[in-house]
């Protein structure tokens, strides 16, 4: 099956698309303020408008996603500003290394770490995804509904500074997903007689509003004097001694990153922080973590790339994304009228395996781009914001306009962006919002189907052992992380 995937991903057009995606991804990733979710969000409407076939569009988005995870480290190491949230931990040792004149080894080691992480995780996808998909086929609508509740609870429990805020964000997303004509009954819901809202709020409009327009407003708020990047001098490659020092770190962090990524909710940021802390503890006495230890750049980069790829597992096998970025990709599938879910592996082998194969190809491309060609990307760090911000604004609106060709979508997107900005300033997490919006329709359909089968008996949602298990985990994930934090605080107070 994987060979079939390579046949799809290996066509000249798709190779070209992957190459372009990797390049754009790395650039978007290294620009401070723009991360994978912004890159995927901005390119999705353009891919759609260019009428790319679904597998090519997904290859493009995945290459951008993978590339962003590589790019984030470049600005982390050279200007001490993480290019995306997953690269926060890379600043801890990357910037000190660069200050010591070791920017080259830091960049090449982190590129190798990114590659190892991504490779291990992609092998993990090949090994585990088909098994998980087979298991999930036994799910009925009731189990499915609970599974989606679980996904939302996981994300809600882990992100943001308060539970009510995360839940509010998620519920607003769910609510917006109900706008439009109800497919089962033909009733118009919350359209307020607006013609353009009959088919619901377009997914692309929400995505661009939340991840492009509001992002630009935040960039204006956080604008600070850009620090001069450290110039790349001396050797570019790490040496054998450095490699031997980091090899087990690479492997350990890649494996744990993958498993953290598979869990819904826990994304690249959490994986890189956890692995960095663990490696630091394991390093014993004679480590230089915090002052420029090579393992300190290897650990977070291996972990964040592994978890980014790992988070594709629930998306591909269950159709339930566990992160904001994979939620956007699920939305991309639905734009092409492909229903995500456990049957994806059977119904759309070309897309699924093509995507997995393209991940292998994209990562080799990225490794090549990010070691010998690193200077090309470093040059992008000097793009001034006065050119970047209007450019991003224009590209985003081009994408939205191209889909339906109406300014209504542009105006709606701008207002959603403004609202998104207010929510983000108040520390409402945005990932549950987009996840709620993407899952809303599927949740409602599965709930109604389950209750139709049971003739209105709500008990069906708690009937099977799988469903009960999922409920228990959902409640645990929603309350667990916060309870643990409260206990920690109490312990700290007592001590």
């Amino acid at each position, binding site marked *: 099956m994987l060979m079939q995937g390579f046949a799809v991903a290996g066509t000249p057009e798709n190779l070209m698309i992957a190459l372009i995606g990797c390049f754009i991804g790395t650039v978007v990733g290294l620009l401070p303020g723009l991360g994978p979710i912004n890159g995927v969000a901005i390119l999705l409407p*353009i891919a759609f*408008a*260019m*009428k790319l076939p679904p597998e090519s569009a997904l290859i493009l988005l995945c290459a951008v996603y993978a590339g962003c995870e590589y790019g984030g480290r470049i600005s982390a190491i050279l200007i001490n500003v993480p290019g995306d949230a997953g690269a926060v931990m890379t600043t801890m040792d990357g910037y000190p290394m660069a200050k010591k004149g070791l920017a080259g080894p830091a960049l090449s080691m982190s590129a190798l770490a990114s590659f190892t992480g991504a490779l291990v995780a992609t092998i993990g996808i090949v090994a585990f995804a088909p098994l998980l998909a087979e298991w999930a086929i036994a799910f009925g609508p009731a189990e499915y509904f609970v599974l989606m509740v679980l996904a939302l609870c996981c994300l809600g429990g882990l992100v943001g*500074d*308060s539970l*009510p*805020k995360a*839940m*509010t964000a998620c*519920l*607003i997303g*769910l*609510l917006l997903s*109900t706008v439009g004509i*109800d497919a*089962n*009954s033909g*009733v118009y*819901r*919350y359209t307020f007689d607006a013609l353009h809202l009959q088919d619901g709020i377009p997914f692309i409009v929400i995505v661009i509003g939340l991840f492009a*327009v509001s992002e*630009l*407003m935040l960039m*204006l*708020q956080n*604008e600070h004097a850009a620090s001069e990047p450290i110039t790349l001098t001396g050797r570019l490659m790490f040496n054998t001694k450095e490699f031997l020092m980091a090899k087990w770190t690479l492997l350990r962090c890649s494996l744990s990153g993958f498993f953290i990524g598979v869990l819904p909710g826990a994304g690249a940021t959490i994986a890189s922080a956890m692995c960095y802390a663990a490696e630091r503890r394991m390093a014993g006495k004679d480590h230089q973590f915090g002052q420029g230890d090579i393992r300190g750049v290897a650990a977070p980069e291996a972990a964040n790339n592994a978890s980014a790829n790992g988070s594709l597992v629930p998306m591909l096998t269950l159709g339930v994304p566990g992160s904001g970025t994979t939620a956007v990709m699920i939305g991309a599938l639905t734009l092409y009228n492909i229903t995500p879910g456990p049957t994806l592996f059977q119904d759309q082998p070309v897309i699924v395996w093509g995507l997995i194969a393209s991940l292998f190809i994209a990562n080799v491309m990225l490794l090549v781009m990010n070691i010998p060609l690193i200077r090309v990307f470093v040059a992008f760090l000097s793009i*001034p914001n*006065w*050119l970047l*911000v*209007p*450019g991003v*604004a*224009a*590209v985003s*609106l*081009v994408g939205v*306009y*191209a889909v339906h*060709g109406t*300014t209504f979508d*542009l*105006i709606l*997107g*701008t*207002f959603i*962006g403004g609202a998104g*900005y*207010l929510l983000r*300033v*108040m*520390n409402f997490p945005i990932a549950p919002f987009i996840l709620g919006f993407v899952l809303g329709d599927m*949740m*409602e359909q599965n*709930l*109604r189907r389950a*209750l*139709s089968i049971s003739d*209105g008996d709500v008990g069906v949602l708690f009937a099977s052992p799988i469903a009960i298990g999922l409920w228990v985990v959902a409640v645990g994930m929603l309350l667990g992380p916060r309870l643990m934090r409260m206990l920690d605080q109490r312990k700290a107070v007592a001590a």
Partner: protein
Amino acid sequence: MSERILGGVLLLVSIAGIFIGWNYVPPVSYEPVGPRAFPLLVLFLLGICAITLMLDKKSTTTWAPTPVLARIGLLFLIVLAYALLFDKLGFIIATALMTIPVARFFGGTWKQCVLGGIGLGVGMFFFFDRLLDVALPTGLWLNGILG
């Protein structure tokens, strides 16, 4: 305080939503759960969250200083104007007009802003419209020339 105001607004939204949604009953029903249940459930939970937000005393919001906030508001209005004028003025002019003030906000000089605006407008038009086949509005005035 900000969270409490937002909580109040959301509470009103959920009450209004429940009020409006109550009438979403199909003329003929084939299923035990109609189009009304799910939105009402979501709105009910949203209402509860809104009340929790209103009761929570501690706030984690730090607003930007007023001059920055004013510029952010202006940025929003510029993007809104850009959206409104996108197909009336055509992509090239609208983009150039949008770029100039936005680039000024981010520290470009006047010369950089004007050149950057024209460059972005023309460059992106040809890149998307001609190279990638993503149709962009030319605006009424240019239809004759570029048609």
